[in-house]
């Protein structure tokens, strides 16, 4: 479904990677590994179209994502470094807004259920939550995005406790088992029991 061909990425005068090609099929899990500053986030941003590669292109079902724009982004759920939650809104309001922005209906029961799975109080302003809880409030989008064919997750396990990390691993494994694809970055080993795990090591 997702195809990257001959990607180059430079940051300033430093070349992060050159001539990187790979493809991702249904039901595949791709882990982008590498040290800090090796270009994991840049690669992920190139894959979702937030960043333009210095050379090469990314194709979705055969068509370049630069031409598809929102026709492509409808098919993906991207969780970046920043949690994308507003401090003044409650976790439920944040989640409902995020799913409406992604083009899905925000059914209140599903939103509540997703937050409950991650153990986040729904009606407390995010300002009052801890850093780890904020991260979990952002990850609560995953249970709501089960029909989205491609997940792109930047460091999904950062700042999570063991329970939340296992839940996230289970969600990723479940998504792959449904025949969808997941790309995630991490600098540590993650144990996801998926049929196909591929690793790109940067740096």
């Amino acid at each position, binding site marked *: 479904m997702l195809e990257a061909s001959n990607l180059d990425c430079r940051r300033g005068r430093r070349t992060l990677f050159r001539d990187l090609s790979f493809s991702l099929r249904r039901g595949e899990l791709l882990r982008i590994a590498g040290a800090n500053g090796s270009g994991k986030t840049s690669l992920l941003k190139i894959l979702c179209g937030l*960043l333009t590669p210095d050379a090469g292109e990314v194709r979705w079902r055969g068509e370049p994502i630069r031409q598809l724009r*929102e026709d492509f*982004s*409808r098919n993906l759920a991207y969780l970046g*470094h920043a*949690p994308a939650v507003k401090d003044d809104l409650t976790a439920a309001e944040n989640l409902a807004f995020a799913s409406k*922005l992604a*083009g899905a209906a925000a059914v209140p029961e599903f939103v509540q259920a997703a937050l409950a799975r991650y153990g986040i109080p729904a009606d407390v302003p995010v300002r009052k939550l801890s850093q780890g809880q904020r991260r979990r409030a952002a990850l609560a989008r995953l249970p709501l995005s089960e029909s989205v064919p491609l997940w792109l997750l930047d460091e999904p396990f950062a700042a999570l406790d063991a329970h939340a990390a296992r839940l996230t691993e289970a969600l990723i494994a479940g998504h792959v088992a449904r025949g969808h694809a997941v790309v995630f970055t991490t600098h540590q080993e993650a144990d996801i029991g998926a049929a196909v795990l591929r690793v790109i090591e940067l740096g």
Partner: protein
Amino acid sequence: MIEAARAIVRRDLLLALRRPSDVGTALLFFVIVASLFPLGIGAEPNLLRAVAPGVIWVAALLASMLCLSRLFAADHADGTLEQMLLGAAPLGMIVAAKVLAHWLVAGLPLVAIAPLIALQYDLPPALYGTLALSLLLGTPVLSLVGAIGAALTLGLRGGGVLLALLVLPLYVPVLIFGAGSVDMASAGLSPLGQLQLLGALLVVAAAFAPWAIAAALRISTE
């Protein structure tokens, strides 16, 4: 698509409601700047009446610029902007919704309070309608054009000053037609021509600015 735009307007209004100080700043700034002039110039009614349209319009211009730099900055800082760029709706639509919410919070209150300001300048009540109407047509243009500047200067250090330098020259036509319409009315002529030109500016800005803002956002987030 419409659903996403509605969600953005709703969310931004809700955020403004939970942070009323942000809304109050622009309005208070407008009131204070416009009130400084009668104090500085002196209470000569004819002089005040003559400068009123220009002064009120310049104050509105500056007030609407005041919160521009925050338009995309907060969403940029917490990552929401990335989600908007990757949303299901076209980016032009999303930024149009953001600008609409910004205008409702920062522009519309100026329109509502303008007659009160006009009172200080001894403007005849017959002109209040023209003044409010010119602001009603003009302030959305200010928000739309200003948002292009806000998108271009997003994430730059010292972006606030650059934003002013970039955007204020573009505000000139709005100022000329806006203040001009009130001047015409106070001279006893029909302000219709000026107001129609303002309306035309609004239509053109509403049609093209969202796409320019979207393009600028894509450039400055890379």
